[in-house]
């Protein structure tokens, strides 16, 4: 049999174990809920009679509507911003803006919500100018928050895709005197087309599963998503059959969509190291001015909720504020985040080994199935994973003592898909570019890893930084497994906001934001150091 390269058996085996572990956590979580409801706690499984219930239909429709609108608006708004950044490389603060885009995407939701409430809430800074009918709570606020979180992410992906257009294409287009429409049709659109569909689906799934934003800014059956309905069924009604039915519905819809995207999606290989872009067509002065305006408007929009956090702080409050109360939660957040992020990134790398192997051996179906297992926690309701595992473990382990371990472990499990999505293109690029060469040079095991590591290191560190920020911002998992002895910074913000201590919440939010910015800054510095 021909082999285009083999991986060390150890890494392959570890990858298979990793996949098994991730699948096992989901299975045990569902088993926890199913087992609990079967033991005389309200039924023996999901309550499917709810399918004809108006409440269920309303929740389902709202989940789809808000996710669809959030994804569509994020994509529509991202494109002109991405074009401005691409066509005007001399824009002031361009690189900082791209860093801000990552920060917005990974910003802890509670920080954003505090900022949005200060800006557009009932007594918000901008509220007097928005008319009497303005209400942040409901679809308006949910869409705003989702767009704020996802539009910058779309900008980054689109810019990255457009950067893969080779100089030669632009030069040829210029030589052939292409009209702007022809340039869009023949050059720009083909470069972003594949990622547009993937991006839309990805943002849709993220918003469909959104929890904290809808919990804080939604409410009532008219503005509730499936994830929040699961939380309410579990927390307020303790109706496990209803929660299970909602969970299955969410899992099936988001899972099918994600599977369809995995099948449809293609990875662009155009971003080889040698394809550096040096040349872009010159724009007319009107177009230039137009793009500059769009760019600076985007700056303003992204900065406003952050700046608004300062408005929530009273100087007198600062002098009275006990800063030491922030120390321990900050340390706990960093430690938990580091454990979850490092283990999630390593696990993602390992579970990519059997997937790369399947890809190389052209086992298409096996690759799709393995990828789906690797990333399924992206679509599995986080609330179900947490509560199901909690119920499963409760009679077996003292969760007062061990709960914090499961905060780290579950965070790791739900973060694996994010690290996976970051690492996969780079590793596939390595295989595409170098696997034949590696095979020809008979590089295997450690010698192959020594060549592969410097190639993936920047992406590995970037992925680590991304999941570290996401882990530090966790609220959902901590709300189930956490305890007062191990309070994290986001949980502290939640506690302050819950008792209307907005000044304290703003201070803690700013600290959390500063922490995330610091990680991002360190990561950007590392990346630029590696790239130059």
């Amino acid at each position: 049999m021909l082999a285009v390269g083999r991986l060390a058996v150890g890494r392959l085996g570890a990858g298979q174990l990793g996949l098994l572990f991730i699948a096992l956590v989901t299975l045990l979580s569902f088993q926890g809920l199913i087992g609990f409801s079967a033991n005389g706690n309200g039924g023996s499984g999901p309550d499917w009679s709810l399918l004809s219930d108006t409440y269920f239909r309303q929740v389902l429709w709202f989940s789809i509507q808000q996710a669809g609108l959030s994804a569509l608006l994020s994509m529509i708004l991202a494109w002109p911003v991405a074009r401005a950044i691409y066509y005007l490389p001399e824009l002031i603060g361009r690189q900082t803006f791209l860093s801000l885009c990552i920060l917005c995407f990974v910003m802890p939701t509670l920080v954003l919500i505090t900022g949005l409430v200060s800006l557009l809430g009932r007594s918000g800074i901008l509220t007097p100018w928005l008319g009497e009918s303005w209400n942040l709570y409901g679809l308006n606020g949910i869409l705003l928050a989702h767009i704020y979180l996802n539009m910058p992410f779309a900008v980054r992906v689109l810019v990255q895709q457009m950067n893969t257009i080779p100089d030669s294409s632009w030069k040829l287009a210029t030589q052939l005197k292409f009209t702007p429409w022809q340039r869009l049709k023949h050059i720009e659109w083909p470069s972003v087309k594949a990622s547009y569909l993937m991006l839309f689906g990805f943002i849709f799934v993220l918003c469909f599963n959104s929890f904290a934003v809808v919990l804080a800014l939604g409410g009532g059956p008219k503005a509730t998503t499936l994830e929040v309905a699961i939380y309410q069924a579990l927390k307020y009604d303790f109706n496990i059959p209803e929660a299970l039915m909602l969970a299955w519905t969410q899992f099936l819809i988001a899972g099918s969509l994600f599977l369809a995207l995995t099948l449809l999606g293609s990875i662009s290989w155009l971003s080889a190291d040698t394809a550096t872009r040096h040349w872009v067509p010159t724009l007319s002065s009107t177009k230039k001015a137009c793009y500059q305006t769009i760019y600076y408007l985007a700056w303003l929009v992204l900065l406003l909720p952050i700046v608004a956090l300062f408005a929530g702080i009273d100087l007198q409050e600062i002098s009275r504020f006990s800063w030491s109360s922030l120390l321990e939660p900050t340390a706990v957040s960093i430690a938990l985040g580091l454990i979850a992020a490092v283990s999630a990134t390593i696990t993602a790398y390992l579970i990519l080994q059997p997937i790369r192997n399947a890809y190389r051996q052209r086992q298409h179906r096996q690759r799709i199935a393995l990828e789906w297992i690797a990333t399924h926690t992206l679509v599995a309701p986080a609330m179900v994973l947490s509560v199901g595992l909690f119920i499963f473990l409760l009679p077996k382990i003292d969760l007062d003592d061990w709960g914090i371990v499961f905060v780290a472990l579950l965070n790791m499990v739900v973060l694996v898909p994010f690290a996976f999505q970051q690492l996969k293109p780079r590793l596939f690029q390595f295989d595409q570019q170098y696997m034949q060469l590696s095979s020809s040079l008979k590089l295997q095991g450690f010698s192959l890893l020594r060549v592969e590591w410097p190639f993936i290191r920047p992406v590995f560190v970037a992925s680590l930084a991304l999941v570290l920020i996401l882990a530090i911002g966790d609220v959902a998992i901590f709300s189930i497994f956490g305890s007062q002895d191990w309070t994290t910074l986001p949980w502290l913000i939640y506690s302050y906001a819950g008792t209307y201590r907005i000044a304290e919440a703003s201070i803690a939010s700013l600290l959390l934001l500063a922490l995330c910015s610091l990680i991002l800054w360190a990561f950007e510095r590392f990346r630029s150091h590696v790239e130059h």
Partner: protein
Amino acid sequence: MLSIDKLKIRLDDWSSEYQLQVADAEILAIQGKSGVGKSTLLHAIAGFVSCQSGSIAWQGKSIENQPAEQRPVSLLFQDHNLFEHLSITQNLKLGFGKPPPWQKITAAAKQLEIEQLLDSKPGNCSGGQRQRVALIRTLLRPEPIVLLDEPFAELDPQTRGLATDWVRQTAKEGHKTLLLVTHQDEDVERVADRCLVLNQATDN
């Protein structure tokens, strides 16, 4: 001896059959029109293209079922021969399976006028310089069969002369069996012992 017997290769709607023998330490140039299957033949010998039927044997032992990593072959691809994120030195040390013959490598680098590039990354080298780096590694690796796919395509006439002479001399000293794909008759004259012209591939 490298013996290729009734080797049939099929790629989508294209197929071709090969029959040839190359003696030990012989240098064979392969020519033919574009698309005739010259590179495909090299890739099949190296183990990157699977064959439908027929055999590839080295010293009487069949190798067509061996994975690429186990074949006694050193191949120079048309492009993508260097790891872009590693320095030229790091690239030159790969593929030896034991400590690389560094003295030979530096001597070759000096002879082919690339010794000043050893600390550079491939991205900072011209196409011709990259090709010479890849040539050095391919020829000096301890594999008995060397396959070169248009190795001099990006070289100027002067460097081409240097490189062709060095390839022939090194191949003969190292007792290598060398197959060289080229479009240039001049390369055939300067390097090869014999030339084989492939006929048109069969379209189905």
